[in-house]
């Protein structure tokens, strides 16, 4: 009796289960960039600034690779369409394929440039974000970087790469090489060192530039504090190259010739307390690059015959070889996200290209291929972009790429030969 009751209960309970609806599961979406229209800014008496702002904003958003920037030539909306949702004819924007619309107003009050930017979702005809930025009238591109970062953060919930960092690089002029510091896109460039041969710069979080200079004969290490005077921090009798600031800016790693080989040293920011952390007498150890937590250092060593990328703890212990593919791997740069190291490698066709290696899995992926020589990678402060030099358009220029290599742009800089970029977060 009990058993049949139990059976009945089971049957009754299973009836609703049978009647329960089937939920269709759908996944495996195709990912695609968001079609974005950036309407030309409306400007009252600040046309030139508005133009610079517009160019910089478009460029920033384009290099991110997550937006498909629509050509303003195809826009159907009225050029004087207002900023408010009520004034916008969204159908005209959806007709050109836009899913996201950015509208801006640039205005000038005395020495102050003010930008109001609004982001709209075209499908729902709703405003999703509004930003107001102010700055000096001569810095429209900087305002654009801040707006671009805000838009990036709105969509991805991650910090943007543009307004928090600066770049330093070497510029070649005839036989001379000088060190420059600029905003991420090469604008607001200022010379930091130009005494003959000044090369291989790096920028610390507090804006101090470290570089290698031949000004006193032997290549030695110099630093230029922000607003200060250049000073040598290495022993002039030994060849010293390739300085790298630790992420907190308190230590500096560099390579110094010693005996038959070259060893890596770590010193305080002023060059004091130098400690040798590699010791392979007959071999070259060079190009140190700090991990974002400051606990490890990637470097190049030829201890197994040809240059390969290695990692070690910041005190020199726990050395591990990272790259096994390719016979000429150099210039490592550690992503601020910690998971990836970018490096230059010469492939079997003798072309120099930029590669990424996953520090955990050691999987190597290629960023550039078949377009000139591409070298000396450096990561954006948020680790989502890689800047490098490329000869694809003739002389060596600075280029920026997304991590998948699908979106690559040349920085809008004056003609010239640019080398060894380093992109750092600066307070």
């Amino acid at each position: 009796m009990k058993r049949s009751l139990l059976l009945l209960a089971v049957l009754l309970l299973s009836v609703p289960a049978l009647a329960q609806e089937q939920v269709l599961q759908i996944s495996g979406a195709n990912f695609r960039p968001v079609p974005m229209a950036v309407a030309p800014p409306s400007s009252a008496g600040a046309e030139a600034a508005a133009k610079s702002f517009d160019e910089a904003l478009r460029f920033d958003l384009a290099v991110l690779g997550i937006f498909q920037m629509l050509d303003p030539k195809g826009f159907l909306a009225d050029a004087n369409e207002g900023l408010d949702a009520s004034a916008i004819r969204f159908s005209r924007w959806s007709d050109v394929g836009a899913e996201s619309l950015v509208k801006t107003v640039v205005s000038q009050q005395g020495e102050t440039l003010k930008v109001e930017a609004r982001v709209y979702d075209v499908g729902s005809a709703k405003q999703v974000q509004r930003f107001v930025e102010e700055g000096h009238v001569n810095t429209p591109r900087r305002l654009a970087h801040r707006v671009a970062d805000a838009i990036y953060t709105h969509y991805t919930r991650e910090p943007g790469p543009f307004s928090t960092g600066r770049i330093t690089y070497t510029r070649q002029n005839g036989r001379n090489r000088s060190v420059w510091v600029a905003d991420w896109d090469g604008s607001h460039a200022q010379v930091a060192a130009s005494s003959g041969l000044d090369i291989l710069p790096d920028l610390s979080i507090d804006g101090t530039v470290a570089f290698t200079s031949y000004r006193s004969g032997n290549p030695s290490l110099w630093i230029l504090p922000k607003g200060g005077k250049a000073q040598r921090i290495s022993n002039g009798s030994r060849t010293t190259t390739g300085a790298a600031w630790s992420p907190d800016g308190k230590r500096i790693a560099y390579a110094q010739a010693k005996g038959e080989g070259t060893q890596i040293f770590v010193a305080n920011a002023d060059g004091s307390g130098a400690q040798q952390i590699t010791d392979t007498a007959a071999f070259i150890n060079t190009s140190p690059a700090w991990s974002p937590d400051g606990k490890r250092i990637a470097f190049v060593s030829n201890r197994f015959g040809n240059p390969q990328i290695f990692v070690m703890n910041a005190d020199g212990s726990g050395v591990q070889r990272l790259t096994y593919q390719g016979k000429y791997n150099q210039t490592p740069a550690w992503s601020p996200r910690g998971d990836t190291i970018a490096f230059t490698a010469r492939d079997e066709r003798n072309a120099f290209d930029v590669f990424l290696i996953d520090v955990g899995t050691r999987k190597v992926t290629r960023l550039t291929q078949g377009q000139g020589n591409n070298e000396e990678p450096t990561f954006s402060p948020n680790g989502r972009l890689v800047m490098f030099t490329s000869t694809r358009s003739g002389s060596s220029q600075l280029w920026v790429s997304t991590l998948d290599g699908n979106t690559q742009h040349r920085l809008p800089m004056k003609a010239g030969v640019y080398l060894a970029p380093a992109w750092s977060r600066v307070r």
Partner: protein
Amino acid sequence: MTALSPIDYSLLQPRKSRISAFVVISVVLHVVVAGAGLWLSKQERTPRIDLDAKPIKASLVRLGKERDETFLPRKEPKPPPPPKEVKAPEPTPVAATEPVPVPKPAAIPIPTPEAKPEPAPQPVKGEKTGEARRNDLFAAFDRTAEAAPDEELEGAADGDPLGDSAVQEGERYYGMLTAQIKRNYSLPDTLSEQERLYLKALIRIKIGRAGQLLDATLVKASENPQFDNAVLAAVKRTAPFSPPPEHLVAQLEDRGVPMEFGP
């Protein structure tokens, strides 16, 4: 036993012969063999050749040498870009008083260079020219392409070959629905890697008898409105769907079907 006389040896003497029996047997055997051959040839079916079937083309290629493991990786060549999606602009409303020739919806307007400009067509307010006209043309192509039955959706690999059971037909319909939506399901690159791991949205769609979308509502939103919008957009872009089988019509019209989307 009688002794043979010399006459018996004479070649002129007629003798009893068995040749006729052999001839008869031979003829009968031949007839049997020929008959059997004829019968067998009738039994064997002629191979059916479907001239409409797509030929399978196979080309022989030399096997590539595996890439040396010590070499650096090379990038795969990019696949050709997907065809650009062209959205059909909304038809412009035309005043009833103006006699304007209304083109058939399925007709494809083909611009003919020989067409004489005279008599000049009445300029209609909002008449499409240039880009808009080109868009119309592409849209018409799109429509005709959509109307064609999709071969890939015919049956499922693990489906019932006869498909005569109502339940199976229902499941097959849902499978087809899923496949149709999936083809239009795209998400923005702006979704962070982290979010791609956990985002989920539950929606419910109601489908009419002819496969038209009656309603699509978000039952349980994800934490990201971009994701929710992309999911709803995928459903709307897919409509109209294939008409549902008869036994599902009432259910799909009244209650609809829930769908859970993940990235």
